[in-house]
């Protein structure tokens, strides 16, 4: 008889809540919130409370699968690995390393992402490695890096409640990041002003001092309009602009063209409301911007992010406790997957692959030559696969068939491959197309680290033994690398991998397992003495000066027309997560919500004669 609780980090969203997995007689029986955790302080959302449920699902992959004559056959590890290694090797040899591509996983640990990055670049010799961040916050990474020099949340989650004005836009926080929403509500109760700019009424909007609905895809226009008002009223922080920024003149010139009248015309937000937003935000002592996919998932995503950065720089609302620009990252470890360099142009810690010096550092440590040219992004990979230029893919814990745009295109692309190897814990829609499926393990069966949305590197701890013959993903990657002749993959533990990460990644340099034993450390943490960084850009920006970028408003790539008269935008539910690979295996979550649904303006619904609860068929130009 034994009963214990294992402290670990939640596997769902990027909040990074601490929870205990309850283990009774070596079986997972429940989840408890960690009462003393800095992020969630004893609370969890429904996904957190049921985080253990999917782990032992009957649908878990327990043995490797290989496709023979169009059907999956269970095989032993030797055969599966042999086929994967031989297949990848053959393509590399015959078609060159650039005909291979890899997708990494924002669900997996930092160590695993780092290893996959090392495997891609050091063993396969390709920079064609990317992951789903491309589709969510790549525009954040690009935009924030351009403006501030670092593409991550400027503040930390607990600080949110210290802001005196919070501007939430493009984030349905209570649904997507419940434990961050709780901080927003707390800030509100402490007297902060809450501004919500969202095309829909959301739970937070009922608590907002100002809630406005912009026309879909017009974010740059309203932000420019607000900045126009701020500048013409003289509410901008001249001292801050003078000392800490560059490019103000261009911005000012551009913003002058964006009169409130014009903004109202484009966005549908009244000038009165724009003025209220401008005044409330600009006059706040510590204003914080919180955004998510509603800002980034546009063809103008980077412009939107840059505009928010402009707004923060203009009013000096960045680089202070509780005040900054805060993208909420979706996956438990999407921050980490980016940090680990699972990006086609960057090594870990956002070190450019093109830089001889930085690349050279990795080459010395790994003892191999690394490719210099940036690789393909997720979208380009699918394009190249469809076009026959990519012949083999390795996908770690991702379900691009559902998460990438245009399912038909992705299916065609993946079906054209000579070899698709998928490492996952479930037979996802993507895995069904694979030639080899390797059974990995869930967060409950391995050690490692996740990096939460506020740059907090935290421990993941093994609670139970792997199910069936499944193996920890980091081991599988190492074994595959070794099977392909890769050297330097003999790690005894994820901790050893982490040591290598710290050696090669300056922003992680000071982080060690013992240091994050009790509480996470937030990067940048450059040495053992560095306590980590709660909020960034305090004295100077990562790039030196904060940079304004004049941005023009562009309409979305697709607009409603006669053939397709309605605009569709996506949203989140607190009860399901992403493509549902995990959450739809969880009875408690399925009971709440088991299928996607569509909300429609009652007027549109009335015109189309669609009653509540009716099934509808949605078609777009893409299908």
């Amino acid at each position, binding site marked *: *008889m*034994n*009963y*214990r*609780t294992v*402290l670990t980090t939640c596997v769902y969203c990027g909040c990074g809540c*601490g929870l*205990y997995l*309850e283990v*009774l*007689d070596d079986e997972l*029986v*429940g989840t*408890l*919130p*960690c*009462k*003393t*955790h800095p992020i*969630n302080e*004893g*609370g*969890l*959302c*429904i996904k*957190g*409370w049921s985080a253990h449920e999917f782990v032992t699902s009957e649908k878990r992959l327990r043995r490797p699968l290989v496709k023979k004559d169009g059907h999956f056959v269970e095989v032993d590890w030797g055969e599966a690995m042999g086929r994967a290694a031989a297949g990848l090797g053959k393509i590399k040899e015959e078609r060159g390393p650039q005909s291979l591509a890899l997708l990494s996983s924002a669900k997996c640990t930092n160590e695993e992402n780092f290893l996959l990055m090392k495997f891609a670049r050091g063993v396969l010799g390709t920079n064609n490695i990317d992951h789903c961040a491309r589709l969510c916050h790549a525009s954040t990474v690009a935009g924030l890096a351009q403006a501030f020099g670092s593409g991550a949340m400027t503040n930390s989650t607990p600080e949110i409640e210290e802001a005196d004005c919070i501007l939430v836009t493009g984030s349905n926080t*209570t*649904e997507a990041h*419940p*434990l961050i*929403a*709780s901080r927003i*509500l*707390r800030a509100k*109760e402490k007297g902060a002003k809450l501004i919500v700019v969202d095309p829909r009424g959301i*739970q937070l909007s*009922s*608590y907002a001092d100002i809630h406005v609905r912009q026309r879909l895809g017009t974010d740059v226009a309203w932000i420019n309009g607000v900045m126009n008002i701020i500048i013409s009223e003289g509410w901008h922080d001249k001292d801050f602009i003078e000392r800490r920024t560059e490019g103000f003149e261009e911005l000012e010139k551009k913003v002058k063209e964006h009169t409130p009248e014009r903004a109202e015309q484009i966005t549908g937000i009244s000038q009165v409301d724009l003025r209220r937003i401008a005044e409330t935000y600009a006059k706040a002592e510590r204003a914080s911007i919180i955004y998510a996919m509603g800002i980034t998932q546009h063809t103008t995503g980077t412009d939107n992010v840059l505009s928010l950065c402009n707004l923060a720089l203009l009013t000096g609302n960045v680089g202070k406790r509780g005040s900054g620009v805060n993208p909420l990252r979706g996956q438990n470890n999407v921050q980490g997957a980016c940090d680990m360099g699972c990006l086609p142009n960057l090594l870990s810690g956002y070190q450019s692959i093109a830089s001889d010096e930085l690349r050279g550092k990795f080459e010395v440590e790994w003892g191999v030559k690394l490719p210099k040219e940036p690789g393909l992004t997720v979208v380009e990979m699918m394009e190249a696969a469809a076009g026959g230029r990519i012949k083999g893919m390795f996908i770690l814990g991702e379900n691009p068939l559902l998460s990438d745009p245009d399912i038909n295109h992705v299916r065609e692309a993946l079906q054209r491959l000579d070899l698709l190897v998928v490492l996952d814990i479930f037979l996802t829609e993507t895995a069904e197309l694979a030639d080899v499926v390797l059974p990995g393990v869930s967060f409950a069966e391995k050690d490692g680290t996740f990096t939460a949305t506020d740059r907090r590197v935290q*421990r993941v701890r093994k609670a139970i033994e792997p199910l069936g013959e499944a193996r920890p993903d980091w081991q599988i990657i190492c074994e595959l690398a070794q099977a392909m002749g890769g050297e330097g993959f003999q790690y005894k533990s994820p901790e050893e991998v982490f040591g290598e990460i710290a050696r090669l990644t300056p922003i992680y340099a000071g982080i060690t397992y013992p240091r994050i*034993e*009790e*509480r996470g450390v937030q990067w940048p943490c450059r040495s053992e003495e560095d306590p980590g960084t709660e909020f960034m850009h305090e004295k100077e920006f990562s790039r030196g000066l904060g940079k304004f970028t004049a941005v023009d408003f562009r309409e979305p790539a697709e607009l409603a027309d006669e053939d397709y008269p309605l605009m569709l935008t996506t949203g989140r*539910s*607190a*009860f399901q997560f992403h493509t549902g690979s995990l959450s739809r295996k969880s009875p408690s979550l399925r*009971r*709440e*919500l088991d299928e996607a649904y569509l909300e429609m303006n009652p007027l549109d619904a009335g015109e189309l004669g669609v009653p509540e609860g009716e099934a509808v068929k949605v078609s777009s130009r893409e299908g």
Partner: protein
Amino acid sequence: MEALRAKVAQLLKEKAISGFLGLKLEHGHPSPFLFTGEEGLDLLVVSDTRFPLTKLLQRLTSKYPEEKFGVMVRGCDERSLIELHKDNQVNLEHLVTVGVACSQELAQRCGCKVPYPSQFEVGEPATGVEGGGELESIEGMAEDERFNFWMEQFGKCIKCYGCRNSCPLCYCSECTLEDSFLVPPGETPPKAPIFHLIRAFHTVGRCIDCGLCEEACPVGIPLRTIYKKLGQVVSELFGYSPGKEVEGRSPLSFLGEKPFKEQG
């Protein structure tokens, strides 16, 4: 702390219990753990961090109904055991409780009237906290003001079920909160006020006012004041206070022999 460790070591050594459910200090955080041998007892701690130990205990007792377990109890834990015993969820005869008196600071934080169990091995009995600050201020509101107050509070709910999941007295395998007719599934916030009132009514005559529900609420809904209020009502109407004595039954758990007013 040493007294507690010694006591537990003795119980285990004498085989008076097969395991002791307490808190273990690991990775810098106290968390529930079942101590089954003298080894490792140095990690057994008393802390101001509270977990629904008696709820977790039910997992053990239902899997091992014949075994005897020891459990660390504060005042609130002991009260919950008494109610659970009456509901046939645990058998007090199969349990050995080791009492801990809460620190004054914790008692204050919890607004606890009786921050110690009937017998305790650790700590000094702190002074009970009287008066229910927030409860009184809510009662003092005008009716419509109170309605708006609660609707605003309930509107914050993210339907995590943390209140239920942390409640030592919530043990049903089928929960009314999940009844899709009463509370349509998949909505945040859940239908208000019914979601919260269903739960409130289920605490009537049972809630032992431990406040773990409120501690688990990520959005800070003052849930406990509702249950506290109902506790007062039950006490006034029926003269019953949950968790006080092993004798007597909760007034809403049986039909009654006489109209209620003549009772108790």
